C-alpha cells in the first residue's frame, strides 16, 4: 500500500507520465529501425537524462526499452527484417501472415502479446525485487568484491563468442575504470597530464561509443534495408475468441521471459526463440508454425516484453545488469547517484515505486501508442538510410557534447566507437567490457576496504562465507564455460578440417 502511495505521488508530482509516454514513442521508432537495437535507442537518450530528475530520467530509459521491444516486431512482420534481435523469431510467422494479407492482424497480436508480457514482467519485478535486494543486506566488503567478480565472470561466460575474449573484454573494462584520480588516495592514474581525464572516463561515453557509434560504422558498409508498403499501416487487434487461442502461447512466452530476464547474459533474443520453440512443441497444430501461426508471434513477443520487466530484477537488487539494455539503465542510475541494492529501497522508495508506476504507465500506453505510432514508424523505416544515419550521427555528437560541453568527450566517444568496431570484427562481446567499467569502482573499492581491515590478508575473501560462495559460483561458471569452449573448439576444428579437405577435393 505504501508502495502504491509512493508510485502515485511520483506519477502526479513529477513528469514521469510524460517520460513514460515519450520513452515508449522513442522506443517504438528506434526499435523499428533495422540495426538500431533497444540498447542503442536507450544510449541515444542517455545524454538527455543528465539534466533531468532521477525518476523521469530512469522511467524514460526503462520505457524506451519497453517500446523498442515492440517496435522491433514492426519491420520483422512487414518486411521480414527484424528491428531488434529479439524480434527475429517474430519474423518467421509474422511475415508469413503478412504475405497472406494478414499483416495488420499479426501486428495486433504482437502488440497485445507485448502488453500482456510487459504487465506479467512488471508484476514479477514488483513482487520479487525487494525481497531479493534484502539478501544483499548481509553483504560485507569482501562479499561485494566477490559479487562484482561473479557478475563479470557470469556475463563473460554467457556472452556470445569465446570465454577468453569475454574475460579479456571484462578486464579491459576494469582497466578503463582505473583511469582518473584514485578515490581512496587521491593520486592520478593513467591521466597523461590531461585535466579532462582526472575525473575518469565517464561510462556514458564508452557506452554510446561502443553501442551507437560502432553500429553507425557497421551500417555504413551495409546495403539499404527493404521498404514497407504504406498500405500496411493498420493494426487489427485480435478479437476475444482469437485471444483465447493465444493465451497458452502468451503464458509460455511470459514464463520463459521471467526466467530468462533474471538470468545474466540471456536477454530477450534467447527468450523469444526458446518460447517460439516451446509454443510449437505445446501447440495442437505445430505444423502451422512457420506458415503464419498467430501463436508463433504471441509467444516470442510476450517473452521479449516480459524480459523488459524482469531484466530489471538483478539490476535493482544487486546492481548487476544481464544485458546491454539494462547496462545502459544501470549507467543511468549511477549518473543520478542511485546505487542499486537494498539501500535503494530504504533511502529512495519514491524512486523505486515511481519507476514501477512509470513502467505500468509505459506498458498501458504501449497499447494505444503502438497503434498510433505505426504509421510514423513505417514512414521512418522508409526514409533513405543515408539520411537516417546522418541524423543519428548528428544526434550522438550533439547529445554527448551537451553533457560536459567538452570536445574531448567526443574524441573519447569516437575512440570507443572505433574500439567497438574492432571488437565486433574480432568477436569480442561488449557487455563484459561495459560491466567491467560500471562495476570497476565497486570491485576495487571493496577489495581495498576489505584488505584495509585485515592489514592486507587476502584470506578475508575466503573466510567470509558469502564471498566464498560467490567466488565458487564465479569459478564454476568460468570452468563450465571453458569446458563448453573446448568442446566447441574441437568441433569447429573438425568442421574446418572437413572444409579444407572438401575445397582441396573440389580443386583437383
Amino acid at each position: 500500500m505504501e508502495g502504491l502511495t509512493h508510485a502515485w505521488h511520483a506519477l502526479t508530482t513529477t513528469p514521469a507520465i510524460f517520460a513514460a509516454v515519450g520513452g515508449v514513442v522513442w522506443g517504438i521508432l528506434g526499435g523499428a529501425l533495422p540495426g538500431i537495437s533497444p540498447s542503442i535507442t536507450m544510449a541515444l537518450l542517455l545524454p538527455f537524462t543528465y539534466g533531468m530528475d532521477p525518476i523521469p530520467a530512469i522511467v524514460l530509459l526503462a520505457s524506451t526499452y519497453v517500446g523498442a521491444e515492440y517496435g522491433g516486431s514492426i519491420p520483422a512482420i512487414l518486411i521480414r527484417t527484424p528491428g531488434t534481435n529479439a524480434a527475429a523469431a517474430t519474423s518467421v510467422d509474422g511475415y508469413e501472415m503478412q504475405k497472406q494479407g494478414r499483416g495488420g492482424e499479426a501486428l495486433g497480436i504482437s502488440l497485445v502479446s507485448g502488453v500482456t508480457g510487459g504487465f506479467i514482467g512488471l508484476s514479477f519485478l514488483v513482487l520479487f525485487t525487494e525481497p531479493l535486494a534484502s539478501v544483499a543486506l548481509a553483504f560485507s566488503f569482501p562479499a561485494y568484491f566477490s559479487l562484482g567478480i561473479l557478475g563479470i565472470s557470469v556475463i563473460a561466460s554467457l556472452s556470445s563468442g569465446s570465454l577468453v575474449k569475454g574475460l579479456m573484454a571484462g578486464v579491459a573494462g576494469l582497466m578503463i575504470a582505473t583511469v582518473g584520480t584514485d578515490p581512496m588516495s587521491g593520486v592520478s592514474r593513467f591521466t597523461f597530464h590531461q585535466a579532462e581525464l582526472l575525473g575518469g572516463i565517464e561510462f556514458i561515453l564508452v557506452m554510446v561509443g561502443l553501442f551507437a557509434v560502432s553500429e553507425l560504422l557497421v551500417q555504413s558498409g551495409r546495403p539499404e534495408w527493404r521498404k514497407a508498403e504504406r498500405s500496411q499501416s493498420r493494426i487489427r487487434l485480435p478479437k476475444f475468441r482469437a485471444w483465447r487461442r493465444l493465451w497458452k502461447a502468451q503464458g509460455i512466452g511470459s514464463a520463459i521471459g521471467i526466467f530468462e530476464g533474471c538470468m545474466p547474459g540471456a536477454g530477450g533474443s534467447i527468450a523469444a526463440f526458446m518460447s517460439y520453440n516451446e509454443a510449437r512443441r505445446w501447440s495442437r497444430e505445430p505444423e502451422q508454425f512457420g506458415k503464419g501461426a498467430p501463436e508463433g508471434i504471441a509467444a516470442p513477443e510476450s517473452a521479449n516484453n516480459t524480459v523488459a520487466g524482469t531484466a530489471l530484477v538483478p539490476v535493482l537488487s544487486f546492481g548487476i545488469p544481464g544485458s546491454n539494455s539494462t547496462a545502459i539503465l544501470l549507467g543511468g542510475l549511477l549518473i543520478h547517484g542511485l546505487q542499486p541494492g537494498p539501500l535503494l529501497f530504504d533511502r529512495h522508495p519514491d524512486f523505486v515505486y515511481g519507476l514501477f508506476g512509470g513502467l505500468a504507465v509505459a506498458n498501458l500506453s504501449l497499447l494505444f501508442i503502438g497503434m498510433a505510432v505505426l504509421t510514423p514508424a513505417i514512414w521512418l523505416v522508409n526514409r533513405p538510410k543515408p539520411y537516417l544515419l546522418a541524423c543519428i550521427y548528428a544526434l550522438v555528437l550533439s547529445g554527448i557534447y551537451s553533457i560536459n560541453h567538452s570536445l574531448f568527450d567526443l574524441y573519447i566517444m569516437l575512440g570507443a566507437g572505433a574500439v567497438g568496431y574492432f571488437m565486433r570484427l574480432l568477436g569480442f562481446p561488449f557487455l563484459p567490457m561495459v560491466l567491467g567499467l560500471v562495476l570497476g569502482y565497486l570491485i576495487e573499492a571493496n577489495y581495498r576496504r576489505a584488505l584495509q581491515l585485515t592489514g592486507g590478508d587476502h584470506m578475508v575473501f575466503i573466510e567470509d562465507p558469502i564471498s566464498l560462495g560467490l567466488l565458487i559460483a564465479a569459478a564454476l561458471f568460468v570452468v563450465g564455460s571453458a569446458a563448453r569452449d573446448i568442446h566447441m573448439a574441437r568441433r569447429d576444428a573438425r568442421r574446418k578440417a572437413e572444409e579444407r579437405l572438401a575445397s582441396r577435393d573440389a580443386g583437383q
Partner: protein
Amino acid sequence: MLRRIPKDIWIGLATLVLAGAYWFGADRIPISPLDGAVNAAAMPKALAYALGALALVLIVRALAFELITRRAVAEGKQEPGGDSELKATDGEDTGARYKRHLRAAGMLAIGILYLIIVPYLGYVLSIALLVFTVAAFMQARPDRKLLILSGSIAIFFYLLFVRFLDIPLPPGFWPSLVS
C-alpha cells in the same frame, strides 16, 4: 610450420603488448601516504597480469585449434592446406571486406573532421556539413534536397539544444564578426 598465423594469435600478441604497456603505466603510479594496506597501483597491476595471462591463453588456444585441425586433415590422408584455401568458402570476398572497413574508417574520419572544424565554424554550420557529408558519403545524391535537409536538421538541433535545453554549443567565429 604455420603457413599463415591465425587471427587469434595476432590478437593475443597485441593484447600482450597492451598488458605490458598498462603494467608499465601502473608501475609509475606514485605512492601516496594516504595509501593503506593496498596502494593505488595494486589493482591496475593485477589487471595487467590478468590481461597478459588471458592473452597467453588465447594464443595457446589458437595454436591448439590449429593443431587439432591439422591432425584431422592428416587423418583424412591429405596434405593440409593453408587458410588461403578457405577463402573460397568465406561468404564475403576480400575486396568487399576491405571496402566495408574503408567505409567505416571514412565514417569515423568525418566525425573527427567535425570535431576539428566545429570550434571555428560553429555548431550550426558544422552539423549541417556533417549531415550533408555523411549522407553523401553513404551514397545519397548530393543535390538541393540534401542541402535543404542538412540545413533543416542543423536548425532543428540548434533549437533543441541551444534554445530548448539551454546548452551552449560552440558558436565559432560568427560572434567575433558581429562584434
